[in-house]
């Protein structure tokens, strides 16, 4: 790829790209910390995670500002235009993931003061999968790798299945012992949050495919086999 004749423009596009990555890395870490707080029953860590969400929000606003400035001042075209519109949409998904991490931390705080009811083994596995999807979708973004992005879209089914299974497990748990309902419900929420993280990572991956190929694969029943 050749460089822009206008170096300022080139630098600003680079700044946009690195800001999206920075935001993505931060959000990934937020999920990890929130899950750690949940499994370790660490209220302080949960609180620290909640407090850090404002950094995600700040990046969201900054990236929006930069994208608007680029659109207004440089009349971007073709792949530059697709990069900027992708950044605008991707940050919305990242910001939502940040909120979900915050919610997980809130549930962690609530659960930490109650007795544990069930080894939360499936939730860390779901979290790993969701974080892995997010990580790979961001990798695909920075490397402009549409194949990697497509693989992320296909991985979403596994998380959905895990969520479904966890849902059944927790339902029977509650049926067996109604005293666990409030705790089981909170775990069920966490499962739903992680399932949503997978959805947002899929959205990001779909936008990456648009950015690279100029083709939208969103709102299909199944991701296409290849591009």
């Amino acid at each position, binding site marked *: *790829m*050749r*460089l*822009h*004749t*206008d170096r300022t*423009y080139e630098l600003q596009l680079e700044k946009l790209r690195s800001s999206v990555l920075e935001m993505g890395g931060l959000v990934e870490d937020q999920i990890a910390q929130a899950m750690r707080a949940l499994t370790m029953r660490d209220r302080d860590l949960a609180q620290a995670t909640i407090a850090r969400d404002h950094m995600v929000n700040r990046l969201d606003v900054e990236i929006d500002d930069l994208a608007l400035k680029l659109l207004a001042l*440089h*009349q*971007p*075209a*073709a*792949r*530059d*235009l*697709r990069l900027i519109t992708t950044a605008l949409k991707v940050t919305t998904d990242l910001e939502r993931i940040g909120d979900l991490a915050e919610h997980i931390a809130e549930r962690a705080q609530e659960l930490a003061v109650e007795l544990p009811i069930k080894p939360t083994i499936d939730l860390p596995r779901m979290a790993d999968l969701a974080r892995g999807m997010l990580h790979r979708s961001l990798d695909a973004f920075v490397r402009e790798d549409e194949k990697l992005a497509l693989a992320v879209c296909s991985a979403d089914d596994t998380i959905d299945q895990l969520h479904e299974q966890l849902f059944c497990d927790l339902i029977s748990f509650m049926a067996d012992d109604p005293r666990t309902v409030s705790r089981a419900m909170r775990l069920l929420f966490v499962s739903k949050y992680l399932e949503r993280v997978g959805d947002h990572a899929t959205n990001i991956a779909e936008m990456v495919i648009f950015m690279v*190929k*100029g*083709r939208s694969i969103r709102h299909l029943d199944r991701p296409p086999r290849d591009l």
Partner: protein
Amino acid sequence: MDMASSTLATAEVSSAKIVVRDLTVRYGSTLALDRVALDVGDRQVTALIGPSGCGKSTFLRCLNRMNDHIRNIRIEGSVSLDGVSIYDAAVDPVELRRRVGMVFQKSNPFPKSIFDNVAFGPRVHGLRDRVELREIVERSLRQAALWDEVKDRLDRSALDLSGGQQQRLCIARALAVEPDVLLMDEPASALDPIATAKIEELIHELKTQYTIVIVTHNMQQAARVSDTTAYFYLGRLVEVGPTEQIFTNPSRPETEDYVTGRFG
């Protein structure tokens, strides 16, 4: 050549007004156009973009044989208008230029009244009837979105008009002989943004009746006014396609580099 045939595929339009094949132009030993093939859609706006010296103006001028009198020029290949080859010996270049009018970068009104500027073409073609001339002048000025601004001073010198008005006068003058095709060579590059917007608005209106080919260095202008965009580089047609596609997702990396400003 692969490039020409692949770009041609995207250029297929339902009804082509002008069909260009294998057009090669040399100025002496300099190759200005290299086997260009392009279909110009009927009542569509086709924009030609590319850096200076890429051949887009040469191409435009081949469409009404404005290049005929250039010394040392050699033109090969075919250009047909409504299926008739315009370089055929039987074709009268004056009649051809009536059907294929031209508007230039620098507005060039004659040092005559507004009325006489617009009536010039019809008079050259033999029209003398005063009433008919008045009708043509009014209709042409209306089509060029200039009538309301000049209707009370048709006898004033065209040179008293503003730059933007002069350019619209030149468009009216081109329309007065009822052409099929309008060629525009950077029609707004010397105008301020408001006059430019008026010309662009005018292009939108004119394309309901006329086939328009426009050369522009302003890529945003090409994006705004045209249906089809053709990218020229070093005398070759690199890519042609729907304007929206050229500016959001062009097929060729050379086009991508140019429309995104990665050049030189």
